[in-house]
């Protein structure tokens, strides 16, 4: 886990308040408010929680029905404000698409042109630097269709970082990567978080544990937790216990490799309390929300 940067006390670079969006009759986001500062913040939530919708609003791809959003002092609901936000933005969509037949260099160069880097020589140097940064120095001239999934994802990250944006939105970038690729990608995201505000959406608690100084849990369109990963872990303190048989009344319980059950919820008296993990805290945050919803 990275230490919280000193800038946590600095003014937020991104501020979101009361964001609400309905999508085909259902509420995709319900009164979402939070602030982001420098460093990597994790946005954790199950599939369908509204993570992508929230990121698309932050990336100015779609406007919210209600609510206010400010990125580095700019309001994307105005024409000039939206342009200003887009000039400071790096966006890696959930499933980045590529033009067929483009090489890695050509693709990042194309995105650099869309980002208004018009001076050919400077643009080419910037593209080269970004591809080198993500470890693709030897694959710059290779066609994207010949690259592995992990390498393609790195090309997309290079495209997101081209032009040195100060606010970077990454939508589930570690999905579909094998453990080694995922580890390498986490290193790149940690590097990208130096001096930038990075919002990383994921449904993997390890991503958050290893990368983020802060975590926001989103479930069914609402914020369920906002704090440090240590605080999220602590939320399950005293609520994880082991037993020989599956405990009645536990929110979740499963047999571990040792043959004992690991239970999550309100422990019975005298239960053997276990040290919680970040995953326990996350499950408590979303299951607690489910309980609340049922009540």
């Amino acid at each position: 886990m990275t230490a919280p940067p000193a800038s946590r006390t600095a003014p937020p670079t991104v501020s979101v308040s009361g964001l609400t969006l309905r999508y085909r009759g259902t509420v995709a986001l319900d009164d979402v408010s939070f602030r982001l500062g420098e460093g990597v913040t994790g946005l954790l939530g199950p599939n369908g929680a509204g993570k992508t919708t929230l990121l698309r609003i932050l990336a100015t791809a779609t406007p919210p029905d209600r609510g206010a959003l400010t990125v580095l002092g700019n309001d994307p609901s105005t024409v000039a404000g939206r342009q200003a936000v887009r000039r400071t933005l790096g966006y890696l969509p959930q499933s980045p698409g590529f033009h067929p037949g483009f090489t890695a260099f050509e693709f990042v160069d194309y995105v650099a042109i869309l980002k208004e880097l018009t001076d050919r020589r400077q643009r080419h140097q910037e593209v080269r630097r970004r591809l080198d940064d993500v470890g693709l120095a030897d694959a710059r001239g290779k066609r994207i269709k010949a690259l592995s999934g992990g390498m393609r994802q790195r090309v997309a990250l290079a495209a997101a970082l081209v032009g040195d944006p100060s606010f970077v939105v990454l939508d589930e970038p570690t999905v579909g990567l094998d453990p080694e690729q995922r580890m390498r990608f986490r290193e790149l995201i940690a590097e990208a978080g130096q001096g930038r505000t990075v919002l990383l959406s994921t449904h993997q608690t390890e991503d958050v544990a290893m990368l983020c100084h802060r975590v926001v849990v989103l479930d069914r369109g609402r914020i369920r937790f906002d704090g440090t990963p240590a605080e999220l872990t602590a939320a399950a303190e005293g609520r994880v216990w082991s037993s020989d048989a599956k405990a009645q009344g536990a929110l979740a319980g499963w047999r571990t490799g040792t043959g004992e059950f690991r239970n999550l919820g309100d422990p019975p008296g005298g239960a053997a309390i276990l040290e919680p993990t970040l995953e326990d805290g996350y499950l408590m945050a979303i299951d607690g929300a489910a309980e609340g919803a049922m009540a």
Partner: protein
Amino acid sequence: MESWHVPEDDLTGYAEGSLAAPRLWSTETHLAGCAHCRERLNTAVGTAAVDAGWARLDAELDAPRPGPVESLLVRLGVADHTARLLAATPVLRRAWLGAVVLTLLVAVAAGHAMRGGSALMMLLATAPLLPLAGVAVSFGPGLDPTYEMAVVAPMHTFRLLMLRTVAVLTTTTTLSALASLALPSFGLAALGWLLPALALTALGLALMPRLGPVVAPSVVAVAWLTAVSLGGLWTGPTAAPFTTAGQCALAAIAVAATAAVLIARDRFDSSRHMNARVRISAGRL
């Protein structure tokens, strides 16, 4: 061995690239013939300058090679970055061009198989739909693989859309004109598709901020086919849209729709319909 050598200041200036003519020329000429001064030049060039030079060269080695279309555009005076965007328009792909050529061939062949005025109608009814379909293909979510990135880029969505529309109109107009040559007996009437093509494209663009990049061209296409059918599709070039009055009306529609597009240009960036949520499968290339 020569008795005169390049003064230190000139050599440093040459190494830094700051030496001006005519001293630059004399230094360059001397360096070509004097191994001693070339040796001194090696030490005069700082490592930072060498690194920067190498970085520039290295970047250019992998830089995109302009294709024939892009080279032609640059030669015609189009800025290199604009040429790149034009050349990367999805409709310039072989699959799209193949589909356009095939459609025109079928239209002309079907025309030849028919008799009288209806021979031309297949082409006149079909050709205006091609640029409309091209605009939908080149900007539709799920059709342009980089749509999601393009939409949030600081470059105005409107500018990108216009660039792509120009690419679409140029290719389809050229190909349709070639197809018209296959029907020489009709003379100028064989070019009756041109004004409808412009009108439909402009109308499709004008409706886009309201209806989205796929629905808007589709609605216009259906309206066109209805108008052509009701206007006497099988009566030949005398069908309503291809009479002088019809062509004048279409020209007026083209001008009005173009004006509407220009007035509403900011809405292309802000409209939710332009940015409808899309999902593009990860492996799609």
